């Protein structure tokens, strides 16, 4: 081919490292659930889940280094609208007792 195609894929070792990182984070989230951190238990659990999801999106789904910038914009907009859904709903439900 005359045009050089962009390769977004990494080495096999890199993918295995990310995968092992995801497994370690899974073990961490299980371990953290048995430690009493008060109100921080769900926050830690969601933080770890978000780190895992970010790793999957960036490296397994090849959003980092994608040749098309629009893909990244679509991904971010998806989670942005999810954030609107959750935050506006909670802004309603969590303030109903304020009357």
């Amino acid at each position, binding site marked *: *081919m005359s045009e050089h195609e962009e390769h977004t894929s990494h080495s096999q070792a890199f993918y295995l490292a990310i995968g092992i990182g*995801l*497994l370690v984070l899974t073990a961490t*989230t299980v371990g953290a659930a*048995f430690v009493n951190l008060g109100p921080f238990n769900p926050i830690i659990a969601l933080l*770890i889940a978000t780190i895992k*999801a970010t790793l999957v999106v960036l490296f397994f789904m090849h959003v980092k280094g994608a040749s098309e910038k629009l893909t990244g914009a679509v991904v971010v907009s998806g989670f942005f609208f999810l954030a609107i859904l*959750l935050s506006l709903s909670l802004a309603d439900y*969590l303030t109903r007792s304020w009357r």
Partner: protein
Amino acid sequence: MPDSQAIVMEHEAHNPALLHHFADAQQQKNAASLGMWLFLVTEIMFFGGMFCAYLVYRLAHFNAFAAASQQLSIGMGAFNTAVLIVSSITVVLAVKAAEAGKRKVLVGYLIITVLLGMTFLVVKGFEYREKFEKHHVPGSTFKFTDTFDDNGKQIPVNPKEAELFFSLYFAMTGMHALHMIIGCGLFGVLTVFAWKGHYSPGYFTPIENAGLYWHLVDIIWIYLFPLLYLISRHS
């Protein structure tokens, strides 16, 4: 216009999978993955609705949700999380094999992926069986007598609120399992196509897009596991 026709002919000669309305293979690939991502965004919003319902009810009935959550098996849930992560690794390695044109390696990874997906579903089946045996399936036979352990103090919970947790549990894991079943079927078909040699380094879009779908289903489980299985486990 003989010139442009010549260019089109040249492209077709280079890559038979390149459709005529795309300038080059890279543009075609970008368009396909953008389209797939738009679909995945609708999936995020679809599951997002259920996550939102879960969040609202969990905040309203925390004690019942914690007591009900403690009836789930962390062992099976964590095992399934690991199975899905390993399957995500095999998917990404399958895409890499397709990119490198290694047909047999690709078929191997696709088969392992389907087997891991089925392993997940079998474990899920055992979990569901346990729910039926304990009468934790929402409906007329639903029974819940457990209490919420508040630092050693046993607080009784309203069974109706626990039933709400299990309704959300079955709706969310059930919808996730349906996506897994579809994913297994998808990868089964791709395995056959890959074996027949439908894919080349110049064209493996179906493998890539099915991979994107599989990873998203994995991400949904990454959130479902802590939210459903790990509520207030320290007490």
